[in-house]
């Protein structure tokens, strides 16, 4: 899974609630939900030090 960007998005309570990520060339809104394959892979790559999730705008 080739993830070239990842940035948190906040909900109306100003909490991070999803990640906007470009995965294999497609932008996905990824829930912060273990079991979602995109989120699991983002966490794996962050843990491996190969991906950084940018703060929300």
């Amino acid at each position, binding site marked *: 899974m080739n993830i070239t960007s990842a940035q948190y998005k906040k909900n109306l309570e100003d909490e991070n*609630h999803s990640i*906007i990520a470009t*995965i294999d060339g497609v*932008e*996905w*809104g*990824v*829930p912060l939900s273990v*079991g*979602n394959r995109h989120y699991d892979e983002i966490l794996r790559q962050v843990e491996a030090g190969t991906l950084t999730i940018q703060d929300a705008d």
Partner: protein
Amino acid sequence: MTSKARELAQIPSTPSGRRNIVINGAMNVAQRGTSFTGLGNGDTGYQVDRFRFVESGSPTYEFTVSQSTTVPSGSGFSNSVKFDCTTADTAMAAGDTLKFEQWIEAQNLQHLAYGSSSAKSLTLSFWVRSNKTGNYVVWFYQDDDARQITKTYSISSADTWEFKTLTIPGDTTGVIDNNNARGLLLSWGLASGTTYTSGTQPTAWESATNANRYAGLNVNLADSTSNEWYITGVQLEVGTVATEFEHRSFGEELALCQRYYHTTDHLAGSSRAHAAYILGVYTTTRGFFGIDVPVAMRATPSISMEGAINLREPDLTTDGTLSSVSYYSNLNNTKFVIDATFSTSTANTFRSVSISTDGAFLFDAEL
């Protein structure tokens, strides 16, 4: 013989009713599209529903993977999947692989009683065809306990459909957890470097080791642009006998697929809807709307969009164009609130979401 005994004697040894554990084994459902070109390094992903092209390492090959109408004559199938090599890789590096796979959800495998003395045998059957004769390997991998077993099949006649049947014993050691995560992987090895072939083929379930994974595979499907490989009629069932393929209706198979992936455009080429959804414009560039999906999804999905999707006033005047969508909340994985970003619209109003002819919302809860 009593009538009851006679009745029992007539029951076949293999289960009746729903038999095929594999989804979309006839390759009929293709929500994402029917042809994917240039698949190679970094392109692991899904094509026809539930099945995916998988690479590892840094291969230099490229393939077109498509839904094909080339099928075994008289078999009752309408579609197959075709791997067509478009860029050859004659010397696979040690860690490079080429595979075709389907993950099966763990809670759908509890009847196998894995991890107990009652663990059931499984039989995998499928039709396959290739110009490339030789020995191929199917890797069965149980994710929860990292267990594996493999089976070899041979393609003996070039460019000829052959029916293959592979039976594996039940695993009395490894337990498949009862959840919605990955349970069992079916992986057709089509090419592999020595990292995954240098060991010994496991004839019984064992703890997974890379070297044994595709041991026995002596084909490199990527070594020539003349190479192609077709498969259809994939069936995995309890028991030691391959029964006739369980043909399910398109609607039933589509619903099974939609647990893992859904697009609002599952019939490519059909006309799209104006005012399909109503969006509340929260700020001039952000709003929310709801989408119901036809089947409860396996897990909270990732959400995307493609094509042009506009916001419109009741008279269809465009008032904003969507640029991004993400998951916001959901109800039982069947109704999702979408958080949308768009070019300037009118705050504190409602706008219809108008999907153009190339537009769709995508929901991914694949394993």
